[in-house]
């Protein structure tokens, strides 16, 4: 709690009571408030359909394509409200969104993928950024000439992240980057993420179902359930929380089958 209040001044992103409604009638998230500190790494955890992707889209402005709208609340980037901005204007400000399921431009080569993603930057910057991306992901450089649709899942994820980096973001948002990837690849990608965070001071908002991996690299985590933030704390505290251990960290420490619970604790999340 305290961490958030004192960091308020240094937050690159704040969401204040954001409510998103799809198709005018169905409520997806409600009263979501969160903050990403400048240069920090924050995870947004939650189950399928909890509203994680919707939250990210409300930040990157991609809701409109799915008939969604931010009906209430404010999304502020570097202190400026950005609710009214088009997606490309948000990218120009420095918000990059790596979509769930990678969504690379399949018929373009990795090289063209990166060029296409530099639309909001100058030619000079694009060249420099491309070098940087290839230095982070040398494997992409090796495969820069073949259609991206034929890359492996891990390579596509790297390309998706690299593509986002081409926009020179200040805040990088990733939607389930570990989805469908082998554990060693997840580890590699997360390592690169923390390296980028460390070296470039890039703020990161990571949406994950894989809480174990995510809590290893972030400093702070939010937990979203049924479209509402139900708790948030430092990664350390979250890892210790019994609720998190049970439902998000899985049965890693289960001693016997009595620990496999088929019911939810009645107690509400304590914050």
């Amino acid at each position, binding site marked *: *709690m305290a961490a*958030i209040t004192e960091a308020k001044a240094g937050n690159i992103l*704040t969401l*204040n*009571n954001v*409510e998103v409604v799809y198709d005018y009638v169905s409520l997806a998230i*409600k*009263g979501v*408030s969160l903050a990403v500190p400048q240069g920090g790494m924050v995870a947004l955890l939650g189950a399928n359909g909890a509203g994680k992707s919707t939250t990210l889209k409300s930040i990157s402005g991609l809701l409109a394509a799915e008939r969604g709208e931010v009906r*209430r*609340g*404010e999304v502020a980037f570097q202190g400026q409200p950005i609710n009214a901005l088009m997606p490309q204007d948000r990218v120009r400000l420095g918000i990059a969104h790596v979509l769930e399921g990678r969504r690379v431009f399949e018929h373009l080569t990795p090289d063209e993928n990166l060029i296409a993603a530099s639309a909001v930057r100058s030619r000079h910057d694009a060249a420099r950024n491309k070098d940087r991306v290839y230095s982070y992901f040398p494997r992409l450089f090796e495969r820069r000439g073949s259609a991206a649709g034929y890359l492996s899942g891990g390579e596509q994820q790297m390309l998706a992240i690299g593509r986002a980096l081409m926009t020179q973001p200040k805040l990088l948002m990733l939607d389930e980057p570990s989805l469908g990837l082998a554990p060693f690849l997840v580890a590699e990608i997360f390592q690169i993420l923390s390296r980028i965070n460390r070296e470039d001071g890039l703020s990161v908002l990571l949406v994950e179902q894989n809480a174990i991996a995510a809590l290893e690299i972030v400093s702070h985590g939010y937990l979203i359930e049924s479209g509402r*933030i139900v*708790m*948030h704390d430092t990664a350390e505290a979250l890892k210790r929380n*019994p609720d998190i251990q049970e439902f998000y960290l899985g049965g890693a420490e289960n001693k016997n*089958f*009595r620990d*496999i*619970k*088929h*019911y939810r*604790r*009645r*107690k509400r999340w*304590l*914050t």
Partner: protein
Amino acid sequence: MQPTDGGAPAAATAATTPTTATTWDFGADTTLSRLLARNAEVFPDDIAMREKSKGIWQEMSWRQVLDSMLHCAAGLESLGFAAGDVLLVVGDNRPRLYIGMIAAGALGGHAMPAFPDATLDEIKHFVHEADVRFVLAEDQEQVDKMLDLREQDAGIAHVIYDDPRGLAAYPFPGLLSWDALCARGEARLKAESGLREALIARANPDGPAVFVHSSGSTGKPKGIVLSHRNLLSGVRNAYHGGAFDFGESILAYLPMAWVGDFAVTVAGGVALRFVINIPERQETVLQNLREVAPTFYLAAPRSWDNMLTTIQVRMEDSTPFKKAIYKFFMASALSAERRKLEGGQPTLKEMLLGPLGEWLVCGPIKDQFGLSRLRGAFTGGEAMGEDTFVFYRALGIKLRQLYGQTESSAYNALQGPDEVRLHTVGRPFPGVEVQISDAGEILVRSGSVFSGYFKQEAATREALRDGWLHTGDAGYLEPNGHLVVLGRLSDVVHTAKGERYIPNYIENRLKFSPYIKEAAVLGAGRDRLAALICIDKEAVGFWAELRGISYMSYADLSQKPEVATLILEAVRHVNRTLPEPLHLTRFVNLHKEFDADDGEITRTRKIRRNVVEDRYAPIIDAIYDNRSSVLMKAQITYETGEVGVIERTLTVQEV
């Protein structure tokens, strides 16, 4: 104390009952198992229970319920369960748990329902109090609790579970699934001729039907054993008093450990052949309520309050056009209803608007919440806020106050359909005698009154004198025979200046505000009144969202200056209805809700004043020391029994 069959004699009433509906002669000299057998014989294929499960309402006929009950009873007996034994029943409302309770009663044993969210300590108290050896648990969660208890030396020998999910691999001795238990019983019933009839006839009308506990707002809950005769007398009295009729459709959602649930769902349900609908889960009650659209609905004031808050919040979130229509018609209906309750006539305009409002606003709202088919809507358990009461009446729900105690099987008095007044609880039921003692205490005598607290001689002597139950409630009878209940005798308190008041009354007024969920009024022995307030997170949260006020958690929200102003308005509003000396002068928005796990309220959500005064002593001191803020270190009990501490600065608000 001998149960008396006061009031209308059974024979006389039999002739007046509808011929199509009844085969019960309205005597209380029978048992639930015999009545169940009778239902199964005369109406074998009528629907007795419905349970929402796997997306549909799975039905059970009376014959199936009886068979299931007999299988369970025979199975229990084969495990060694005998007359006088206790079967602890713990879980949410489930058909098998109800059937298991009837089975325990059929064997002359005590069925002891417990709240599904009861902590280990609470259950431990029950288990030791009555030497519980048998448990009927709903699911893995409850089984885990019982296993934990057993590890702590409790004498629990047999744990029977309903839902096998996650339990298949448990290797613990004495753990038995409901199906296995019933298979065992079924085999016995096949093998032993005459067992079936014997089991049906076994129980004695004066034998135990259920073992419940008083709410224990002032101390440890006291055990209360109600006999078949007690409960059936209560049902009979209420039936004659017009509370319900044969064949009502009900939603069994009240906590099973509350006497009201047993008195309505089991006693009323079996005696009057209700269709007992059981919701899928606690969270789906509202949705299931709409699907069932019961004809009879009893809820605690708190539930009605919650539903009202939901209606208000959802209305606030509606489109401007719909909102305007709602406001217009509701205002008219409210003023008409208020005038009617005070004995006046509605104006011509109100009469004209009424049907239109019913079609446009009231009807749809009742439909949305499944209240459109209600013949009987009741509030009971404690006093209800006046404004909530008027709201539902205005909505066209003929809400009525029901008055009773656990000790008298829940049924004492009820407002007649056309005699609803705000300050009374109506006339005592036929068969219930009411007197007012010299001290102003309400005394009750009826066949429904219990015969004493479990293993508590002193308390029993205190409560039962010369056949009269001393209810502990202050009240009086009006000349026209209507009973007025003022509140708990023990609740009537005085300020240092000698002002007499009942905290509960003021608290109920506060709670009408959708933004206030709980309140504790302070002032006994002090020179002025103050309040601890728990905001309603849903309503205040929504209010905050509309205004773009950011918050993270309950604690965070409760301390927002805007929220303080909001609550201040509500408190001032209440003050305007109170005499000057009883005005609330200061209040604090607490950082958490009162919680039964922390012992601050009972499971039926009545305030435990001593606990609250003790736990929030630093805040109370700050209030009366005229400080403007206070650092509160709060203890939080997790359900595992672990204890955590939260530190927080709270602001004291001046009114």
